[in-house]
């Protein structure tokens, strides 16, 4: 599976994502410069974390107007895989590929630490390698990751099973204490209705190698790769 990692001015997890798909998964990877309009034939677009345009105004607000983003929307509408991590998730909500918004953490502080997540769905292209309700550890690193949407949207997300990851405690219980940033319904990651666009605040690329002490995140990337291989052989 060929991955394309988008580089916006101010992206800073682009090289990390690239490293994981290239070196850890051994998949072909390309950097996609925000100012161009060419997706270079990739199968999955990764919108990496960071501070695109310095997070000025609102996170992701300016980045969504990059020329490349028009192509990404087209690509998504045609069913292409799009993975938005952290700032990438924020951009996806700003551009409307995913509903809701990510607002300031109630602590008003940037928060960088591990969180437990419960995998709510394993029938998406991004989560096929997890087990049902698997509890994984994935770090967060953001100042504005509190998921918000109006009640109708939240209800729709719940009813349609669009919530893919929820913050939980070590035992898997979804509690207010386990919610690091006041996200509604402990939402850590959601998927669009079609199931090809995923946004999440935690950073799977930061826990994909033994040397970093945790490989839970690798399963997400592997899900994509395996899913495609499965698809091809069928």
């Amino acid at each position, binding site marked *: 599976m060929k991955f394309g990692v988008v580089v916006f001015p101010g992206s800073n997890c682009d090289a*990390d994502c690239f490293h994981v798909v290239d070196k850890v998964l051994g998949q072909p990877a390309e950097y996609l410069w925000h100012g161009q309009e060419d997706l270079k034939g990739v199968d999955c677009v990764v919108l990496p974390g960071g501070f695109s345009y310095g997070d000025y105004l609102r996170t992701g607000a300016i980045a969504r107007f990059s020329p490349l983003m028009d192509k990404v929307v087209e690509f998504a509408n045609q069913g292409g895989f799009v993975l938005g991590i952290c700032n990438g998730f924020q951009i996806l909500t700003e551009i409307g590929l995913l509903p809701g918004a990510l607002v300031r953490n109630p602590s008003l502080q940037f928060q960088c630490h591990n969180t437990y997540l419960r995998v709510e769905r394993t029938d998406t292209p991004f989560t096929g390698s997890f087990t049902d309700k698997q509890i994984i550890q994935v770090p967060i690193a953001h100042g504005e990751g509190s998921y918000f949407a109006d009640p109708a949207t939240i209800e729709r997300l719940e009813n349609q099973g669009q919530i893919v990851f929820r913050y939980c405690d070590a035992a898997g219980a979804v509690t207010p204490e386990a919610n690091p940033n006041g996200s509604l319904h402990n939402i850590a990651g959601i998927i669009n209705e079609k199931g090809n666009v995923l946004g999440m605040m935690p950073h799977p690329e930061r826990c994909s190698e033994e040397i970093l002490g945790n490989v839970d995140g690798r399963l997400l990337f592997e899900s994509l790769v395996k899913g495609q291989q499965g698809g091809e052989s069928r």
Partner: protein
Amino acid sequence: MKEGLWREMGLSDQEYQQIKDILEREPNEVELGMFSVMWSEHCSYKNSKKVLKNFPTQGPHILQGPGENAGVIDIGDGQAVVFKIESHNHPSAIEPYQGAATGVGGIIRDIFTMGARPIALLDSLRFGSLSKSKKSRFLFDGVVAGIAGYGNCIGIPTVGGEIYFHPSYEDNPLVNVMCVGLMDQKDMAKGAAAGVGNPVMVVGARTGRDGIHGATFASEELSEASEEKRPAVQVGDPFMEKLLLEACLELIKTGYVVGMQDMGAAGLTSSSCEMAARAGTGIEMDLAKVPRRETGMTPYEIMLSESQERMLVVAQQGKEKEVQAIFDKWGLEAVAVGRVTADGFMTLKENDTVVARIPARALTEDCPLYEPEAKEPAYLSRAREYDLSTLPELEDCSRTLLAMLATPTIASKEWVFKQYDYMVGINTVAGPGAADAAVLRVKDTKKGLALTTDCNSRYVYLDPYRGGQIAVAEAARNLVCTGAQPLAVTDCLNFGNPEKPEIFWQFKEAVAGMSEACRELGTPVTGGNVSFYNETKGEAVYPTPVVGMVGLLDDIDKATTMAFKNDDDIIILLGQNKDELGGSLFLSIIHGLEAGRSPELDLSLEKLVQSTALSLIKQGLVTAAHDCSEGGLAVALAECCIAGGKGAAVLLTDNMKASSLLFGESQSRILITTPKGKVDTVLALLAETKVPYKVLGDVGGEELNITGSGWKVRLAVAVMEEKYRGAIACLMNS
């Protein structure tokens, strides 16, 4: 020009006379401004240069010692580490968020100027009492947020550091930031304006009126009047710096760069004349071409502006277009404002009018050097002669240990490092709080880097020479505990007003002590920073020579942390417990005393303990390692327990008071654990090296039990953890 203007700019009458002699005429205002910043202590090191000559600066792996924008060391495989530390104390006292943020920005530029990609930041901070002073809480909160704001945005992980709280820093906090970069040796860039005719380009942010005379400001004591000099504080733009970083690294890869230097203190003045002086050339610039943010700026303002996120680049002649194309791609300006000349002069024009003409070297080399008077301060003999034997002995060892763990200087700094992105870059193998030093992998190799900053200023206050030695020894010890071989030092020397003989004495002694320790431990100094005038209302901060040190692990898989890991692992103490409480945190916290002598340091014992620990770690015999520092053996044991979520049972047989044994801060001690099955091998090796050691007990259970003769510590790990991890958050949320 106003009579006596030079005095307002911080120049003495003699210095002014000297300037006239150099120019063979009166300087104009622009020239005087340039001299005043370049001859300020901050830029010229006029009071400290002679003393700094004591530092050892040579060694087998040193590729670049002091003199460039940062030091460079060889880590094998054609790779190099670039690192430096810098202070931003005064701006942070006045505007903590922006002051700290721009401090981070400045040191990062020093690293990528050399051609290296910055991969880590460490912050060494000092504030007044957190529990007693609202102002200290305000400054602490703002500084940490500022470091986080800048470092997180630009995407360089803040992986370690240290924080002490002491009333001497109440009005004058210390904010020292170290940056570490990685590069291929072939990409090393230097700050020299070589090649007559080559274009001189200003790149990055536009020039505004901010920070004019910042360097002079850093060279004075803080006072009410500092409030008036407020424009000296700038607002940082980490986004702009990220673009500048990427553009500069891309540019260096092209090979079109002849020399490059960031515009830090004294902005365009210092960057241009230093680059010319290094190459023995001159530079001619047309200031009308410098991109500006504000209208109506004078040549004086343009030359002295300290607007952030700017660099000066000397490019190969004829490659201006290529350089511009790269900056253009990143949305940045790159404007040729002049060229390198052969005459050795800084010639500044505004359109066709010459507004300043000074020999470049006069600004950088001709500044008079001073050797201020040094005199041993009177407080020393009083403090040393204090009779510690009359202190009441501990009543409840467990309670005392809990109190120590909740002391902000010892307590977990989680409240701080949670705000730092310490993982971005995915190299962080041991982040803040995990080990005695931060450990990063070097991608695509087996290697690792260990990074630390250290300075216990109470030791330096009570004995500057020994305190200086200890700062170096402790830094090296911290690196060793992770499994790294210490390689080299960068230092940040924070002192009071050097014109006071007592302060200068502290300075000289501390540098002498550091120099000896650096020599003995084989860790030369590659650069650093001097920050004087850390005083308010005539009171100096504790002398604080912060040591930043870099070490190398040949095998990252052997990296060791402090957490107790397995039940039944055997706990061994390398080194010796001595009956010494002088200068300890215990005396300060429990008895309110800053007295006695700093702990002894025997550098040959230190070397033996370190080499032994390192060799055991490299042989895979060690499961945890932690040095004994503030709070002594008891706190070190508690920290290992808390980090691992495991208890321990320890028996102490030394014939010594409980207070000294538990909380004394004897140097050259490292706690290690080893699996039960390997203990014989370890003991045999220890006997061979003749290192003093003691088997203390074993890991296991949910309590820390320390048994001595007639006293006992018994605490649940969970209880200790709550105090240790909650203390700072609790004070900050109150």
